[in-house]
């Protein structure tokens, strides 16, 4: 149907792009993860498994990874708890104002991540808006210090940032539910709650899975929120990778951790996609 030349012109640039900026860096990272650093701070190009051994042996990496997953899990949960009702309301009950509300959910995505993270800093700080208000209202004597530089701050900020990402796929899946199914359920004697749990929710599961995956995976790899708002107790795995590639100058170990993360994330995506397929009917 298309000429050979046309096919070449269309397929080659994206292939080059992907190989140059995705495949090659991954291969480099893969190679680095089997090398090591000499005491003189140079990369030793001899193949060994030392980095992976260290990864399994040193507790701090494990603990940080688990904490990161725990933070990501909470972000995922809260994003779903906020995003689902919002998407449900918009899809089924917003009526003529649907488009307006939709835009209102999308607009925060236009604001830079950094600005939003800093905004939380000014809200949560000990001299921040929230603490000032609490003290002004005599609700506390002293500024609450768990608000900023804590896992709490990280979870709060990431939830704020990733809720729209959870909302979008859920909203899309709810919009795809034929409304006559809801009418059929009503007609067959189901109460609104029964209709929700037996028809609407099962049919929105692919959206929920996609939204949950977004929130979890994006939070798991985040390093800005913990850097700006996490403090020592809010450190996440990406912060360790950043420091290994920076001040600590241990690229091989950083590459090993990154690769571990990559495998974890890819398996998550794989499972989530399988589940989504299982729950979609068309």
């Amino acid at each position, binding site marked *: 149907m298309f000429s050979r030349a046309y096919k070449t012109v269309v397929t080659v640039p994206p292939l080059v792009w992907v190989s140059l900026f995705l495949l090659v860096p991954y291969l480099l990272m893969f190679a680095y993860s089997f090398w090591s650093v000499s005491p003189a701070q140079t990369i030793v190009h001899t193949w060994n498994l030392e980095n992976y051994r260290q990864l399994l042996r040193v507790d701090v990496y494990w603990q940080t990874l688990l904490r990161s997953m725990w933070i990501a899990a909470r972000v995922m949960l809260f994003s779903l708890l906020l995003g689902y009702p919002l998407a449900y309301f918009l899809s089924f009950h917003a009526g003529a104002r649907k488009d307006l509300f939709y835009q209102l959910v999308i607009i925060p995505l236009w604001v830079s991540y950094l600005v939003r993270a800093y905004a939380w800093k000014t809200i949560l700080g000990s001299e921040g808006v929230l603490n000032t208000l609490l003290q002004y209202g005599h609700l506390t004597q002293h500024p609450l210090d768990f608000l900023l530089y804590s896992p709490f701050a990280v979870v709060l900020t990431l939830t704020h940032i990733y809720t729209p990402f959870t909302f979008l796929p859920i909203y899309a899946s709810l919009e795809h539910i*034929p409304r*006559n*199914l809801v*009418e*059929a*359920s*009503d*007609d*067959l*004697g*189901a*109460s609104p709650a*029964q209709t929700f749990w*037996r*028809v609407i929710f*099962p*049919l929105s599961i692919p959206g929920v899975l996609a939204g949950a995956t977004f929130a979890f995976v994006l939070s798991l790899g985040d390093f800005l929120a913990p850097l700006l708002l996490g403090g020592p107790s809010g450190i996440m795995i990406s912060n360790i990778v950043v420091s290994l590639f920076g001040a600590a100058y241990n690229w091989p170990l950083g590459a090993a951790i990154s690769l571990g993360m990559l495998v974890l994330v890819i398996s998550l995506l794989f499972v989530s996609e399988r589940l989504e397929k299982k*729950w979609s*009917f*068309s």
Partner: protein
Amino acid sequence: MLVKPQPVDSPVTTAEPPTLLEIRNIAKSFGKSIVLRDISMKVAEGEFLTILGESGSGKTTLLRIIAGFENATSGELWMGEKRLDGLPPYKRRVNTVFQHYALFPHLTVEQNVGYGLRVEKHSDAEIASRVEQALVRVKMTVHRKAKPSKISGGQQQRVALARALVKRPQLLLLDEPLSALDANLRRQMQVELKSLQREVGIAFVFVTHDQEEAMVMSDRIALLRVGELEQVATPREIYSRPATAYTAQFIGHTNLLRAQVQSGVVRCGSLSWKAHLPDGLALLSLRPENIRAAGSLPSSVRFRGQLRHRAFQGATELLRVECSDGLLFTVRTAARADWSGELEFEFDPADAVPVRVSEGI
């Protein structure tokens, strides 16, 4: 409540069958557009009533009001002593078969049929036996474990029927349920649906835009036109005694004759005959099959005309005949090869039925 056993072979009575649903002065508008105006009619127990109308006639809206998906702007719905309007759909003993079936895609055939019983929290044993019965009735036992996407349109149709009937509704509403099927399957389903209705004895209110379908299936037809009820009558009556020019034209073919009546004499072009009609202008509907080749009837009206066009339709043929005074007649005759030139026809004046003028006709 005591139910009198019906005598099997009851003598012919003129008493109306008991009313199941009464529609009183229902009107509906969406914003400024009026969809239904002052609709009143009754649905009898066990009857097959068809709401017939073109798209935009408001037929689906009327059905949705009965089901409870829409609220009427004014008017009332009564089922016995119970007022239906204002009740949500799930509190009415009325079930619907939707135009595109609306089967739950994540549930199997069996689970779809059992849905309405499951939400009412019947026992598992009862659900199983009623679902089984319903599946047997629509011949879908083989596909009980299949998801709706794996079965054909006709089969989905049967599942949708079983799902509604398993609830034992007092009234079943069907919104153009056959419109998605191809012509052959559609005719087959018409017969199936009709015999199913006889079997279960539940009143059906069936919506369609297909007048042939309405004629074949219904006990009575309610013809809607842009939100107004034109006529409610049996297929025979609506065909032979159409109340309005629109009805006459919509159901079957007809000749609409504009005539002048003066002291019992009807004049139409150069034709005239005697009839008991009030003086003034009259609009008469004359079915093409009531016009014959001249010769057989003693008290007939005769006319001569040129054959202008003929359409072969198998057993019969439709002829367009133009008289010298410009009158055009459509005539249905037995198909014959040798129609040509000037022909003479006749009709019985009793077959020229007066109809009310409809707007735009």
